[in-house]
């Protein structure tokens, strides 16, 4: 069964802290993605990776960075958390080969920055 897991379901951090969100997939997928979900805005792409050590900016990369050292793991890093980064963060993965492969999503991490 397809599986994308995220390290935490809920996280509370303070302004200025460095925050790591971890995502692991067990499907040997080449592509991995990080989104944030906010009410009324749907999902917005932060970063994605199509191979180990490769990354591309999405639509809203400011304030975030990513790391992909192994194929199955994709980390999202908030260098200095701010209150406007309070959101639901969703990780996804898909096979390589263009857009015709659907993305599989993890359960999400609800991050609160105080």
């Amino acid at each position, binding site marked *: 069964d397809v599986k994308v897991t995220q390290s935490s379901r809920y996280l509370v951090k303070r302004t200025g802290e460095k925050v790591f969100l971890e995502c692991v997939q067990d499907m040997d997928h080449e*592509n991995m*993605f990080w*989104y944030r979900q906010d009410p*009324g*805005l*749907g*999902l*917005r*792409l932060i970063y*994605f990776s*199509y191979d180990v050590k490769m990354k591309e900016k*999405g*639509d809203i990369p400011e304030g975030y960075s990513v790391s992909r050292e192994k194929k199955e793991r994709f980390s999202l890093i908030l260098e200095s958390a701010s209150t406007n980064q309070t959101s*639901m963060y*969703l990780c*996804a993965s898909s096979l390589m080969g*263009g*857009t*015709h492969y*659907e*993305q*599989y*999503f*993890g*359960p*999400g991490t609800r991050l609160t920055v105080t």
Partner: protein
Amino acid sequence: AQKVTQAQTEISVVEKEDVTLDCVYETRDTTYYLFWYKQPPSGELVFLIRRNSFDEQNEISGRYSWNFQKSTSSFNFTITASQVVDSAVYFCALSPFLKLSFGAGTTVTVRA
């Protein structure tokens, strides 16, 4: 730039009623893919359907059906004889290449 509009923010129906969710998209690409995802209260998005821009055939899967009309840039989703388990947020998404652009989502509440 890609854009997906789901004009309906919330829809509430009584069980067994039909529900149609609207999705209108904008893209300059001639080749693209359209998707619908369901997000139940548990939070995990579930893939429902994918359609490429060259395939305008409507599709039916059980109580779910999709109507793709390229002429109006729409990809609407109908749930027939709705059930309480259909209560969720539904997202329409567009992808010309790798990156998905999502609509804002429509929250469907089915009351028993």
